């Protein structure tokens, strides 16, 4: 389970960094350092197994019934990436602590960084490819947060948005590719996929699968033509760039190429697409990098170019090229992280990143100059440094592998020219910034940075030199391991040495180095030449145009569909629903009336239903006289309660009755702030349309109800009736269903109730409502009069009503009642006090703050549910036992009753919260008084 722990660690680290940073600015960094170190420590004992050539696979069963598990994989490639992610991550964490200014939030930075680290580790360590994809998307999201860290800057926001939309779109393509792949192979496990290369390549869907997966990889790794998001992502703080654009985010794409190399490579499609994309990216990136004046932009294009180089190596497809690709992943991560950090140091100490402005910094920061010199020499591919070795391997492969092509000279020449441009921009970085001339117009005098900003760079440059001089000692073991897990076979013979004799690769290196120097010397002419093409549309402009076109289409559609009128929209909605419902009946020869035996009509029922229908129709006719309409609708509600009583649903009748009272009081309270009489609606053809629609809806509802009511049906009632007492311990089946069989639903429902109450509280907060000062007949509103008889009786009735509520609550498990009904009865009893005695009187005797009641109720319900976990049962399993109480008799206590108590409290709290707060709106003066009382 160590792998799962390694993965979870950064997410906890994010939480710790976010919270601890509030105490001290350094705590966030310390938490992050501890996270990195503990992940490394957890990985350490597994290294020996991996180095012996084995693949560690660990599984946590999650939902075994649908074969959904968390599966982790650690092999050579995964370990290499984990080490890069954690190692460079550790250095970036240290660097960032001293880079960020006191205005930047440390907690947010480290939390995002740890989130991102966890997501990257997830990509490297996943065995299941769907799981891998989830982490893949997480890197897109967390890198969005990191790039937009300086949210106040427009370019940070737009850069982050661009990165997210490009990599997010790529992620979608990748999902499609993975699903195809899973269907071809019949499994989403990497081990099986990697072993099924032949099946995949021979499959009819190979090309679409390949294209979709490559889209994902290319967007992430900024391959041409999707490269443009990367330079725009440079709006991120430099430590973020150093991390995301050297070792992690952009490497996720090439990781994918390496990971699926045995499954997808080896076809001419792979060669052309991957090789083609890699080669064009390599050349275009190297060329553009030379013309960028901003240090970070130059490094961004250089990164694009180097990613192209790695892609090209995987595209060439020979085992040796794949080894070189993995090797360059390591080298590039190391020297590019160092170079970004140096760019950050320069920015930090001079306030500028413009190479036209900077110059002669050697005098001010000699130490940094040496580090920069070594790092950019590694980038240029100078002997004795790491970049030289992998570039040599590329040159050699470019010559060897293309012998069979029709233009065998094309690839060697292209890579040599790209190499020359890399040399040229590396020289420019060193010469323009540190040697050439003097700095102009700097805001501060440059000086060496604090020690801690340089230590991470020193470590990285040291590694680069070590690999360059003693490659066999420094990286051979880990490279062999990673490469063999990329190839999934034994490695061919290759040697990691500095000197391979006078072979073509050496000559190409010599040409690239000298040509690079020449290009740098003649750069003025090139700059002028390049300047003429600046007006040409680039990929970024195309992206922005596409985006704008998309938005325009969306606006047009919205404009065409949105009529800005609720009535029209609702009309269309109802009409459509009716059409859909009716269409099922057309062409069917079923009769409307079914075969079920009908119940006889009795006079009383007939009377009640006719009464209800008359009341309902009167509401429609009189709905503009709002008070009368309200009274009439109350009558309809009571009739509905009577229907429930008649048809054997006592619980429903009780609920409906108490809800009816609460609803009418609520609507009365609200009506005070609304016009007492509705304005007449202008008569129009629309009005007739609405009326017709309503009539059709009514007829359809009647027909449908009739059709259902007259048909026999199969039901599962028997199950509940049978098990209610034996397993739920109650004889009121409805209540047992609510608190036991479907307890989870009920928990959700009371939560919705609580949320609605809180939402209402939020809406009423700060709302200024003006009610009328006189009624419709111009009689002044009397604030003082409280009917004496009602006040007296309601006070007398309160204890009785509460007693009834307790009784209803307690017996609910066996007789009609329960938490919902008891809660409503309590609420009604308390609201009576407000109505009869006024809010001031009641408020001084009853707590008005209902939030704790709701919270306690929800807590009760949740704890009852969780308690069953303690005994090893699923959430909300209930238990019961019979207790003998002296004098009272046999009692049976079910744990579900505690749950019902929670329901009760939520219902009481939510109902009172809504009504009290609405009621308090009525008397602003009293409310103000109470507010003062609250604070006292």
């Amino acid at each position: 389970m160590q792998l799962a722990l390694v993965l979870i660690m950064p997410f906890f680290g994010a939480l710790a960094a976010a919270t601890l940073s509030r105490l001290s600015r350094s705590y966030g960094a310390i938490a992050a350092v501890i996270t990195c170190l503990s992940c490394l420590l957890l990985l350490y004992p597994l290294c020996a197994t991996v180095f012996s050539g084995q693949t560690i696979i660990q599984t946590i069963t999650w939902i075994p019934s649908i074969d959904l598990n968390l599966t982790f994989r650690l092999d050579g490639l995964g370990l290499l990436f984990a080490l890069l992610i954690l190692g460079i991550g550790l250095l970036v964490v240290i660097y960032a602590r001293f880079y960020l200014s006191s205005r930047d939030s440390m907690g947010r930075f480290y939390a995002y960084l740890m989130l991102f680290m966890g997501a990257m580790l997830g990509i490297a360590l996943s065995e299941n490819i769907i799981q891998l994809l989830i982490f893949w998307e997480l890197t897109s999201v967390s890198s969005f947060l990191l790039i937009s860290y300086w949210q106040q800057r427009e370019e940070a926001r737009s850069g982050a948005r661009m990165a997210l939309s490009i990599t997010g779109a790529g992620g979608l393509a990748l999902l499609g590719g993975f699903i195809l792949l899973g269907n071809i192979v019949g499994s989403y496990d990497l081990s099986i996929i990697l072993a099924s290369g032949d099946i995949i390549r021979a499959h009819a869907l190979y090309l679409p699968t390949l294209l979709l997966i490559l889209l994902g990889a290319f967007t992430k790794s900024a391959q041409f033509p999707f490269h443009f998001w990367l330079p725009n992502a440079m709006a991120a703080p430099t430590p973020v760039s150093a991390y995301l654009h050297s070792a992690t985010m952009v490497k996720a794409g090439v990781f994918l190429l390496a990971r699926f190399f045995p499954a997808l490579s080896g076809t001419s499609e792979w060669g052309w697409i991957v090789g083609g994309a890699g080669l064009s990216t390599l050349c275009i990136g190297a060329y553009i990098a030379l013309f960028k004046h901003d240090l970070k932009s130059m490094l961004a294009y250089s990164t694009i170019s180097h990613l192209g180089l790695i892609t090209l190596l995987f595209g060439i497809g020979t085992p040796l090229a794949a080894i070189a690709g993995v090797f360059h992943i390591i080298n590039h991560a190391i020297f590019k992280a160092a170079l970004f950090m140096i760019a950050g140091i320069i920015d930090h100490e001079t306030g500028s990143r413009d190479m036209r402005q900077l110059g002669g910094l050697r005098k001010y920061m000699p130490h940094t100059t040496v580090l920069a010199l070594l790092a950019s020499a590694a980038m240029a591919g100078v002997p004795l440094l790491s970049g030289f070795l992998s570039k040599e391997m590329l040159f050699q492969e470019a010559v060897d592998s293309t012998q069979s092509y029709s233009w065998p000279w094309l690839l060697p020449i292209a890579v040599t020219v790209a190499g020359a441009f890399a040399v040229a921009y590396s020289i420019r970085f060193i010469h323009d910034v540190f040697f050439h001339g003097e700095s102009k117009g700097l805001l501060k005098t440059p000086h060496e940075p604090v020690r801690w900003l340089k230590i991470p760079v020193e470590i990285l440059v040291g590694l680069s030199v070590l690999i360059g001089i003693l490659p066999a000692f420094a990286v051979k073991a880990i490279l062999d391991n990673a490469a063999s897990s990329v190839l999934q076979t034994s490695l061919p013979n290759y040697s990691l040495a500095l000197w391979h004799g006078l072979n073509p690769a050496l000559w190409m290196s010599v040409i690239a180095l000298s040509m690079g120097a020449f290009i740098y010397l003649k750069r003025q002419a090139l700059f002028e030449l390049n300047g003429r093409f600046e007006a040409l549309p680039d990929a970024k402009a195309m992206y922005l145009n596409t985006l704008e076109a998309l938005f325009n289409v969306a606006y047009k559609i919205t404009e065409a569909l949105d009529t800005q009128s609720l009535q029209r929209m609702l009309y269309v909605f109802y009409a459509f629903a009716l059409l859909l419902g009716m269409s099922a009946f057309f062409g069917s020869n079923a009769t409307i009336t079914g075969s079920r035996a009908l119940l006889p009509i009795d006079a009383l029922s007939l009377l009640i239903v006719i009464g209800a229908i008359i009341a309902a129709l009167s509401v429609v006719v009189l709905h503009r006289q709002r008070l009368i309409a309200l009274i009439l609708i109350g009558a309809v509600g009571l009739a509905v309660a009577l229907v429930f009583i008649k048809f054997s649903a006592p619980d429903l009748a009780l609920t409906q009755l108490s809800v009816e009272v609460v609803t009418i009081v609520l609507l009365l309270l609200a009506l005070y702030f609304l016009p007492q009489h509705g304005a007449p609606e202008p008569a129009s053809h629309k009005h007739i349309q609405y009326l017709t629609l309503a009539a059709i809806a009514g007829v359809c509802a009647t027909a449908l109800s009739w059709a259902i009511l007259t048909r026999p049906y199969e039901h599962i009632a028997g199950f509940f009736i049978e098990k209610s007492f034996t397993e739920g311990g109650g004889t009121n089946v409805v209540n047992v269903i609510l608190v036991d069989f479907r307890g989870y639903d009920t928990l959700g429902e009371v939560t919705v109730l609580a949320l609605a109450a809180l939402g209402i509280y939020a809406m009423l907060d700060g709302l200024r409502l003006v009610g009328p000062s006189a009624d419709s007949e111009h009689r002044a509103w009397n604030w003082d009069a409280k009917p004496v008889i009602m006040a007296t009786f309601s006070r007398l009735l309160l204890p009785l009503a509460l007693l009834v509520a307790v009784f209803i609550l307690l017996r609910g498990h066996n007789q009609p009642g329960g938490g919902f009904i008891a809660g409503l009865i309590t609420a009604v009893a308390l609201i009576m006090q407000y109505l009869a005695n006024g809010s001031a009187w009641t408020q001084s005797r009853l707590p008005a703050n209902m939030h704790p009641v709701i919270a306690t109720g929800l807590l009760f319900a949740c704890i009852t549910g969780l308690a069953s976990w303690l005994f090893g049962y699923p959430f909300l399993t209930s238990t019961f036992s019979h207790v003998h109480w002296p004098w009272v008799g046999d009692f049976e206590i079910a744990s579900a009753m505690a749950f019902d108590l929670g329901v009760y409290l939520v219902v009481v709290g939510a109902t009172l919260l809504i009504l009290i707060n609405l009621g308090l709106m009525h008397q602003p003066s009293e409310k103000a008084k109470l507010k003062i009382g609250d604070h006292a």
Partner: protein
Amino acid sequence: MEALIALLIGVLTMCGVYLSLRNRTFSVVLGLTFLSYAVNLFLFAMGRLTIGAPPILDNSATNYADPLPQALVLTAIVISFAMTAYVIVLALKSRADLGNDHVDGKEDD
């Protein structure tokens, strides 16, 4: 008896649809109240109509009404109340912020 209940559901639906298509917030709230009556009764009717056999276990009883629709409708009633409360307060807020009680927030042209 089935015909009566079917008729009642139909009338309640008709009133609900018509009132919810009015242009004043209070009428719409009344309409929604009607619609919840209709929907609750309709859901309840899924368990068919049974007289005199409440689902309370009793040794002398031979037949019980279907308890499942009842349990579902019970919570639906309480949730409808929450919804009505939310919508009416929304109507108050809309009137306070926009100065009228038209459903679109502005008077018809």
